């Protein structure tokens, strides 16, 4: 190699060493102030998230431990035992809960979706819509026992009997705002360009709502409905004043009716081991029903297209 070449090479080396010195280190430095703070805060959010999950998991754990052993075909179908009896179950309470939640769904879903159509599409900016939206939000935080008292005054007093019908109406009062607000949001999220496309093809407003807005928002609406059902199934306070309880299977909608929530309330306070075990098992069944509806809501919530 000739001399000038060598000179060039050493020059280059010097230059690259200089560059090395100027180049900042890109290595991770976990103990450096910024990184340390970031790490601690990340850890705190993890702990907070875990703490939020602890109550749910500990409740489910306790229910399986205490109630799981009593779960059998007999407990799911038999009638509640009397004071010193062994065995028995809560079949009538499951039927009662299903029937009353069904009545509440039949009332609140059509009403709620129609109201949501008004709020989201027909007159979203009118004074009536503002008022309804505000009241629906207030109603979501409404003490559920007051819904029971309200229906007691309206239905139980006038019909002179506690009934499944009254229980269903009380649950409907609690479900309605959830359905309205969820359905409104789902419909308002349907993009304007899709509505334009439908109008541009000569759809009437009714057709735009029925063929584009409702199908496109359907998954969101159904998610809201499922969450409302899950909430209603676990509610006991409104049923205390409306459906009361019964030791027998439901034979008519206008008589006192058993429900899981009230059965748990009644049996858990009794001084008999058998009843207390049944209360645990009924709690487990109730939580599983609520969980099933929540999972269903998530599955339906997935967009198809």
């Amino acid at each position: 190699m000739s001399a000038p070449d060598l000179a060039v090479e050493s020059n280059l080396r010097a230059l690259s060493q200089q560059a090395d010195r100027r180049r900042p280190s890109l290595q991770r430095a976990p103990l450096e102030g910024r990184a340390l703070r970031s790490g601690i805060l990340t850890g705190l959010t993890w702990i907070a998230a875990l703490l939020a999950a602890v109550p749910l998991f500990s409740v489910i754990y306790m229910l399986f431990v205490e109630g799981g052993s009593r779960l059998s075909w007999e407990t799911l179908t038999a009638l509640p035992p009397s004071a010193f009896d062994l065995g028995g179950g809560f079949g009538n309470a499951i039927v009662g809960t299903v029937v009353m939640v069904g009545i509440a769904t039949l009332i609140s879903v059509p009403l709620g979706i129609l109201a949501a159509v008004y709020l989201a599409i027909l007159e979203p900016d009118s004074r009536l819509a503002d008022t309804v939206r505000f009241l629906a939000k207030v109603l979501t935080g409404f003490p559920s026992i007051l819904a029971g008292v309200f229906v007691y005054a309206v239905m139980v007093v006038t019909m002179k009997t506690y009934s499944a019908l009254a229980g269903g109406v009380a649950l409907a009062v609690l479900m309605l705002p959830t359905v309205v607000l969820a359905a409104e949001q789902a419909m308002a999220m349907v993009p304007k360009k899709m509505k334009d496309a439908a109008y541009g093809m000569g759809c009437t407003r009714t057709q735009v709502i029925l063929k584009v807005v409702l199908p496109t928002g359907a998954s969101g609406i159904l998610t809201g409905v499922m969450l409302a059902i899950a909430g209603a199934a676990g509610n006991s306070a409104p049923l205390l004043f409306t459906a009361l309880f019964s030791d027998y299977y439901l034979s008519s909608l206008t008589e006192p009716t058993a429900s899981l929530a009230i059965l748990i309330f009644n049996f858990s306070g009794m001084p008999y081991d058998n009843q207390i075990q049944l209360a645990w098992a009924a709690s487990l069944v109730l939580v599983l029903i609520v969980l099933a509806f929540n999972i269903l809501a998530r599955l339906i919530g997935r967009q198809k297209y």
Partner: protein
Amino acid sequence: MHANPKMTAAGASTAPAPVGNGVVMDCQLQKVFYGDFLAVRDSSLPLEKNKITGFIGPSGCGKSTVLRSLNRMNDLIPAFRFEGKVTYHGQDIYDKKVDPVVVRRYIGMVFQQPNPFAMSIYDNVAFGLRLNGFKGNLDERVEKALQGAACWNEVKDKLKNSGLSLSGGQQQRLCIARAIATEPDVLLMDEPCSALDPIATRRVEELMVELKENYTIALVTHNMQQAMRVADTTAFFGVDISQGSRTGYLVEMGPTKKVFEEPEQQLTREYVRGEFS
């Protein structure tokens, strides 16, 4: 095709003297307001049968507003007010007795952003047919519309897939297929290529030229080359700022070649030469 849709009742004599193949639509716009804002004034545009009429002009000149007035899409904007007349086969579509919903069945629209429904490709195209209670062979008509919109070969194996799964250019052709499936008379296209890349744009432009065999087309475009390539007639809109507000109006309308090469108005000349925009 649709020689005389049922909207045509009376007043055919008020149509202006037919030019070429005859005037399908004649827009005699006096004033268009959004609330108190005068958006467009004094514009008279005849749309000739089986021709593409291009609307060009700078931003805010009201070309989209005029286009959307032609099938009463602007009625969906609460503060919108139209003064003047739009005759379609001699009938004023702003007449109180006219149902805007019926107007839009004969005067279809393709939008700036592709807007397929959240449904399968097939259901998107069949949408308008089902809406109108079509009783014939749905598969056949869907295929025909997709072929008409030059996207049959690309989608024929995935008709059950979501319309939203297609690329932007394919979505726009799907929207055109959806618009022509019901065989409207007039197609309004509001910058249909502005969201597309050049290759997709070229395909949609070729499609427009094919479509004019059967349809009368009004095309809003920001792209002067596009107007030169596809429009038979060009309408140039300007903005009047003399009243302290921005009001659009029709400056000049004529055969595309004439508007671009020897326009009558100084303003048109400056615009088509790219001296302002």
